[in-house]
């Protein structure tokens, strides 16, 4: 009995009362003769494998993202995961079309049969893609329902069709095992100990870290849609969608290039009494502010991730900031902000009454749409920020994800 099977049996015994799911098991895919397919198989296995046939006629090309590469090899595709965040970690995923053989030489890599039929998504930022790609009935687990704003996923969770497995802990691994996924998509951290995927690999689960948040550009981050789609053979759908997104994004950015005044912008939010969660100077949000015709106040920083800065330092940075975009602590008014921490009332943008939360549509659980949708809608986020910084450029645009905090 393999360690995975043993773990699965033990966990099932422990979780006799756990939720059940209705997702298809890998064996449930229909096995069909496809000959030379004209499109990718998004819900089936190949019965008549023939070497030399291209089973992925729809492909993605990665133009903007820097943390992964993909190559196609007839009946399998190879993803090289190369996050350049100082973690020194790389990984290779060999995605093999269901019904075709594992290529020789792939023994040391992570081999995954595609299209994936059951998956756990432990990174809520990708949750809107579940509906976009029509994967609702394949999603069997999430990290926490509190971070999900998608009503369909919430409904399915309430119906017991999706389990909350948590993240990072041993109990999370047990719970992930219990839903028997083909793949668990996890949140990638530059700090090795914070990562869940090595622990899942140890127990035989195919875990795939998602590192979109380290991309230096919004479109690079958005291209992680393509990364995600590779596991479901949904390249055509996503490639078309991304082309539209990129076109709209670039068109919006072009409108903001010639602005005569570039307002200084503060991002992030106070994460503790002494710290501020601040987008690094090379983070995609810093680039988005530039693309929106603004000037980010922390361009001197070289970090790609969301970083922590001392609140005193941020106060100094914010002194000349005209606008603060990105508070996501649930404040509805500037008064509520000041009631939370009176020091915040002294921040430059707060004194100027130019504070915008990015948690429009926040649910009681704390989840809000931007956190779930921004990967697939960077153009909408950019439009919001342009509207905030340069209202005259997009006078008719109604904010999609942001809201101004009134007095």
């Amino acid at each position, binding site marked *: 009995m393999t360690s995975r099977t043993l773990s699965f049996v033990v966990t099932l015994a422990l979780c006799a009362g756990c939720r059940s799911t209705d997702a298809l098991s890998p064996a449930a895919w229909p096995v069909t003769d496809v000959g030379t397919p004209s499109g990718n198989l998004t819900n089936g296995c190949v019965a008549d494998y023939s070497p030399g046939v291209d089973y992925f006629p729809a492909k993605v090309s990665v133009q903007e993202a820097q943390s992964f590469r993909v190559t196609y090899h007839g009946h399998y595709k190879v993803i090289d995961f190369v996050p350049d965040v100082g973690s020194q970690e790389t990984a290779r995923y060999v995605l093999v079309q269901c019904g075709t053989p594992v290529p020789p030489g792939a023994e040391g890599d992570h081999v995954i049969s595609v299209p994936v039929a059951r998956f756990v998504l432990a990174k809520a930022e990708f949750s809107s893609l579940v509906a976009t790609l029509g994967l609702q009935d394949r999603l069997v687990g999430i990290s926490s329902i509190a971070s999900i704003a998608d009503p369909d996923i919430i409904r399915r969770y309430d119906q017991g069709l999706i389990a909350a497995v948590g993240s990072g802990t041993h109990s999370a691994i047990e719970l992930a095992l219990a839903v028997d996924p083909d793949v668990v998509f996890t949140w990638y951290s530059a700090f090795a100990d914070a990562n869940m995927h090595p622990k899942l690999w140890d127990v035989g689960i195919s875990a795939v870290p998602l590192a979109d948040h380290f991309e230096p550009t919004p479109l690079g981050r958005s291209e992680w849609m393509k990364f995600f789609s590779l596991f479901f053979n949904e390249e055509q759908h996503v490639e078309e969608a991304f082309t539209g997104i990129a076109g709209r994004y670039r068109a919006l950015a072009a409108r903001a290039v010639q602005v005569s005044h570039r307002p200084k912008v503060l991002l992030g939010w106070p994460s503790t*009494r*002494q710290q501020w969660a601040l987008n690094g100077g090379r983070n995609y949000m810093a680039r988005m502010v530039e693309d929106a015709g603004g000037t980010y106040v922390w361009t001197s920083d070289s970090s790609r991730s969301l970083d922590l800065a001392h609140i005193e330092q941020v*106060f100094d940075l914010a002194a000349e900031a005209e606008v603060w975009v990105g508070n996501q602590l*649930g404040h509805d008014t500037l008064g509520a902000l000041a*009631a939370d921490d009176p020091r915040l009332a002294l921040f430059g943008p707060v004194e100027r009454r130019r504070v915008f939360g990015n948690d429009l549509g926040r649910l009681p*659980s704390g989840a809000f749409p931007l956190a779930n949708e921004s990967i697939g809608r960077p153009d909408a986020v950019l439009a919001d920020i342009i509207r905030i910084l340069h209202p005259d450029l997009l006078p008719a645009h109604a904010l999609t994800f942001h809201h101004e905090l009134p007095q």
Partner: protein
Amino acid sequence: MNSVAAGTAVGSTMTPAAGPSRASSTGIYVVLAATLVTAFLLELAIGAVRIPLGEVVSILAGGHTEQETWARIVLTFRLPRAINALVSGAALGACGVLLQTLFRNPLADPFVLGIMHGARLAVATLVVATGVAGPAFAARFGDLGTIATSAAAAAGAIGVLLLMLAVSARVTTVTLLIVGLLLGYVCIGLISALLHFVDEVQARAFSQWDGGSFDGITRQQLFILMPLVVIGIALAHALVKPLNALLLGESYAATMGVSIVRARVLAFACVGLLAGPVTAFCGPIPFLGLVAAHVARGLLHTSDHRLLMPAAALTGAILGLAADLVTHLPWNKHFLHLDAVIGMIGAPIALWVILRRRQMRALEI
């Protein structure tokens, strides 16, 4: 004057030591006071943002400053934090002395004995009962929330102390120390269980409050904290005579006319008054009380509470400021958290105390 101090110590674990002369103790107080002032000024002068010392002095003197932002940083960020570190450090230093005498154990302090965990449990219960925490709590309850948090923390601290008081009549002081430790663990477990009943946002807000820090205290909170600590330290100082008598053993103290129960109740109330609000506004601050008491005792070579209590309060204030200063040095990346800094200082001192005492090495307290 030092009739009690000379040849006595905290419990049987302390080495008898001669007390200082009046001149040397005065000298030590002067040094402590000077160190306190220096630490306070350094706390105002050094931080994440580099502000020239001359500008800091000018700001404090109410003069002109080159940048208005600097004035706000010094007066709004650093000054309340420094006052909090000073006041809370003094409170914990006094608590350390009180508890080490009450339990006749050199390792007793509000954190080790579970008193801070009692305060944390009470605040967690408040969060669950009201259904909100963090910004929402402040927005909904305002100053009332501040007072409620403070009262809950004090009640939690006193609750743990009352339990220990109830047990204290039946067990030895050493056992009582263990009871305190166990109560702390019970509180930690209950906090964890309670947090299952709040959503992640509230749990995150609670954990933000729960991270020990002198930062972010509001003026209203200081107006609550400072009088309580002043009253608590004054009460502690009023208890120096019965505390000195307790050093000689409860039986002996009773023969001297000291009401043991009354002394304990007052001392426990004092600890609740000091440790509760500090925990409410700073979160749990480990080891500071323990370390301050030992440093003061080591400086003065006495266990006479008339000398020791103010010295421990001063030392606690200095340690609070110094530890906070280390966390706020302009580190290039990342943060040193207060509990980490105090732990780095406090744990070695606790180890030193254990290894220095033959009885404790052999667990023969």
